[in-house]
């Protein structure tokens, strides 16, 4: 009897190690204010009831990558995938504290925010190089997708041959044009969603089980 218990324990331990390895680390990337943290919060809340971090309309609210582990996402077809979600600081090529002053921040606070945001971008790029198995690239569908940062980032992700799902966020806004994003990146699946309202996120979950599984 004892033998059986021991074997079973060993077996389940092995299985756990095996399962942990299967947990894919998914990074949510994109320019500042695209809604990365909002989506991360939604995913985590939908599947674990937790939250990842605060959101704000001032760009660069997330200045350190935040991680939430072992989230099991089940698609409508019953397929499920275990992921670690990494919410990253918005990637941009220019950070200027004047931008934050326009949002009513004090000069010193704005300068600190700019410095932290710069460190955050470097950190996000570090994650992308070493620890990420798949990418959700978020774009604001009310904005022009043909920005240099987006083209460059998608290029970098492609060069690392990571699976990428492009999310056209903010479709609840009247001037959203997710089709523009679709035509900008025809080589990747584009899912239009509203992270805030939760529109169409089921389709995203479906795609995630298919892509990151």
């Amino acid at each position, binding site marked *: 009897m004892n033998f059986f218990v021991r074997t079973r324990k060993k077996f389940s331990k092995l299985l756990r190690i095996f399962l942990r390895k299967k947990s894919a680390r998914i990074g949510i990337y994109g320019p500042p204010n695209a809604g990365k943290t909002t989506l991360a919060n939604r995913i985590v809340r939908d599947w674990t009831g937790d939250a990842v971090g605060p959101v704000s309309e001032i760009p660069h609210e997330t200045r350190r990558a935040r991680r939430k582990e072992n989230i099991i996402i089940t698609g409508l077809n019953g397929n499920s995938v275990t992921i670690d979600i990494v919410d990253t600081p918005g990637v941009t090529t220019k950070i*200027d504290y004047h931008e934050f002053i326009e949002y009513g921040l004090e000069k010193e606070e704005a300068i600190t925010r700019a410095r932290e945001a710069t460190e955050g971008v470097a950190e996000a790029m570090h994650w992308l*190089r070493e620890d990420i198995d798949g990418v959700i690239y978020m774009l604001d569908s009310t904005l022009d997708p043909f920005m240099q940062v987006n083209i460059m980032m998608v290029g970098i992700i492609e060069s690392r041959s990571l699976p990428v799902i492009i999310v056209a966020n903010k479709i609840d806004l009247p001037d959203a044009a997710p089709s523009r994003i679709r035509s900008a990146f025809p080589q990747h699946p584009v899912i239009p969603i509203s992270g805030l309202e939760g529109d169409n996120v089921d389709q995203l979950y479906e795609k995630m089980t298919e892509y990151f599984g």
Partner: protein
Amino acid sequence: MPHKCTQCGREFKDGSTIILKGCPSCAGKKFLYVKESQQHDDVLKEKSPEELAEESRDEVLEVKPEPARSVQMHDRIESIRILAPGSYELNIEKLAESDERVIRLDTDGKYVLDILSMMKKQKKKK
């Protein structure tokens, strides 16, 4: 001996560096080296610069503009550029390549190298 612009006839003193960027009046790129005695021949004898060139057998000097060297993001060596305190320019491609930090201070091309970040990479290679 002065140079003369073959397009508008404007004259420039010998050794003038202005013409290297083209004629400031008409942006012409071709200049003729004229003898001082013949300096005003084009007006007085109503000769075109081409005729003058033929007469004097001097070659028409053409200023070729230097091809504009556009510095692309990926040609730059710095990963972060500090324009002013609180203003940064980030070189995403460099940041994606490695953790090495080369920081450029925009005032008179000063660079700061984070040697520690470069050491880390070597350690990993071993």
